[in-house]
């Protein structure tokens, strides 16, 4: 084991020890923060999966991915506005609206992402590395610009239609909303796992990610496979956006920029290209961000997350569970 690996483990151990002391001294607060961290982390996990899958298959950081996430929330908020929902209450209409709109938003975002890939990234697949990167940034700005034009710079309200009931167990506040976030995210990740491992398309995605030329020789349609990757990544991001909106009830056009950076850090932390890694990374980074907010101060959280990003990239680029990127 190299020095860098030692350092990584030492740092992890030190963090765990510090957190453990907090857990012992102020268990209730610790539990509360942890719950918050897990819910945030679940959403980051969903977004991180999109980053990691796209990077794993075409080695491109899709800067616009965070904005796909936000746009999902914007679209969801708008569509929900057409239903006769009652905010802050638990009604049948709320439930029906939720069940209808949620998958619809996911599909819309999937479609949008496929269009983006087709228009902005595919033509540049063989261009020098700089070109698709710049296009991705341009796309990010374009999407943010659309949201800015659509709903302005101020925060946008997302209808509060989740069941409100909550309970307090041993002093820890826990609501249906929290459960909703974690459970929904877990279901989606599980579905993804099944898809990747059991379906033909999933296998094609894994093969293309490993060795594009070989996959092509095996008769896999590369364009379709890459498009599918973008589609699925956006399904998850759209879901993440909906979940964020339903939980926090407020979004703004730059949300994707901020969250995107954190989610990408999570993907790298877990091991870029590694799907379980992105899920685990999301949860861990979500927890770390929550602990940082509470114990260090939210004005330092960005610095902490960025520090993790640089640290991982420089000292342990394979991340926690190992990276999965195309060979060659």
């Amino acid at each position, binding site marked *: 084991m190299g020095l860098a690996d030692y350092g990584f483990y030492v740092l992890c151990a030190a963090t765990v020890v510090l957190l453990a002391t907090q857990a012992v001294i102020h268990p209730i607060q610790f539990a509360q923060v942890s719950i918050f961290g897990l819910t945030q982390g679940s959403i980051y996990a969903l977004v991180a999966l999109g980053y990691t899958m796209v990077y794993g298959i075409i080695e491109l*950081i899709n800067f616009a991915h965070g904005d796909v996430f936000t746009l999902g929330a914007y679209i969801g908020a708008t569509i929900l506005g057409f239903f006769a929902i009652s905010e802050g209450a638990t009604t049948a209409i709320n439930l029906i609206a939720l069940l209808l709109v949620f998958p619809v938003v996911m599909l819309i975002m999937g479609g949008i992402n496929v269009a983006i890939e087709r228009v902005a990234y595919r*033509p540049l697949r063989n261009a*020098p590395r*700089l070109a698709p990167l710049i296009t991705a940034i341009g796309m990010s700005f374009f999407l943010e*610009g659309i949201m800015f034009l659509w*709903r302005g710079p101020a925060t946008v309200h997302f209808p509060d239609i989740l069941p409100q009931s909550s309970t307090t167990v041993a002093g820890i506040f826990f609501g249906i909303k929290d459960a909703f976030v974690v459970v929904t995210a877990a279901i989606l990740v599980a579905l993804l796992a099944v898809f990747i491992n059991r379906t033909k398309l999933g296998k094609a995605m894994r093969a293309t990610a490993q060795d594009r030329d070989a996959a092509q020789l095996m008769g896999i349609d590369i364009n379709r496979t890459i498009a599918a990757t973008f589609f699925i990544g956006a399904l998850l991001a759209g879901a993440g956006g909906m979940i964020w909106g339903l939980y926090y009830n407020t979004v703004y056009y730059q949300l994707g920029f901020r969250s995107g950076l954190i989610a990408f850090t999570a993907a790298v932390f877990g091991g870029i290209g590694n799907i379980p890694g992105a899920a685990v990374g999301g949860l861990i980074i979500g927890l770390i961000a929550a602990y940082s907010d509470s114990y260090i101060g939210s004005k330092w959280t960005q610095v902490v997350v*960025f520090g993790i990003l640089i640290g991982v990239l420089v000292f342990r680029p394979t991340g926690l569970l190992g990276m999965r990127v195309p060979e060659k």
Partner: protein
Amino acid sequence: MIRALYARLRLRERIRDRDAAVFGILLIVALVFPIVDIYIRGGTSDVSQATRAGYFVLLAIGLNVVVGFAGLLDLGYAAFFAIGAYTYALLASPQLASSPAHHAVHISFWILIFASMFVAAAFGAILGFPTLRLRGDYLAIVTLGFGEIVPQLFYNFDQWTGGINAVGLIDQPHLAFWLQGPWSGDGPLQIVRNFNFNGDPIAFYVLICILIAVAVVLVSNLYRSRLGRAWMAIREDEVAAAAMGINTVTTKLLAFGIGASFSGFAGAYYAADQSLVSPDNFLFIVSITVLVMVVLGGMGSITGVIIGALVLYFVVFYLIPGLPENAVNLANSVGLGSLTKKSGDWPGLAEEIGRLNFIIYGLILVAMMLLRPQGILPSRVREQELKHAAVQEEETVVEQA
């Protein structure tokens, strides 16, 4: 024989022409502009705007070295701008008196502007050293993160930097003597002793023009040198460059450091001109604005990025803010006055147009990459120059045969 010679001379003149022509035009415009402004427009606000455009030109020239020459995508360029600005601001203002140091420092502008350059370059080296060996994508996102946390840190350490209250009352540059005359509307030609810039727009304008000219010369020199070719080789194919003996890590560090020093230098200038710095001036949007300028103008082309910077500055900071008014007037005159009022979700034409910046940047970046990645003024001068040199080579070969 004579005809060949004549043809050669004619061709030679024409080669230098395009780059030189562009610079010549820019120089003349730069000289005439303030005079026109004062006498025809009766004020110096446009000159101040031109100076602000000047910072962006300087920034674009610097980022061009990083992105255009060496092919390193830096998304946090504004961070070095901030570092340069704050270095000057803290060491040439009353700010440090209210900090734990309890003692204000006032170092001369002319020293600090170089100090800021070195400080920024140092941070560039510190950031670059562990990260420049990463892949392009990763480097981009690392610089993005850096660009995010630097303003954040300036906010956080408010004991030293005044945080959200900004650093104000920044010292002005001071010269032993200065030339004033009818061109600045200050009466007859005279030499002024102990000239303090004191926010004088003409003085700042003249200085930035000189700085830009110097920058252009220096960067052009680098372009046609061993280092410049090494950068381009790395940009084209890093593995092959290394195989040819180029130490890619140190070469990239040089590009990054030089880019950072340009930014820091411009930052110090900015602080002196604005007399106020706050973390809000150095957010991501600034980094991206400079990047869009470089992409628009043509990565790697010095004249290109200058034009790109000027064009984009004009559109984004002059045309568009002014557009709402013009658009409102236009709408009213055409009978679409109802568009200008706020109603429900539609914020009115004025507000709507003011929001276009993001979309414009996005469209420019995507469109340029897809349609014209070489920029509006690509560095084809080199190509022309070389083409004509090849004609000469052939002629000498033929003559020798």
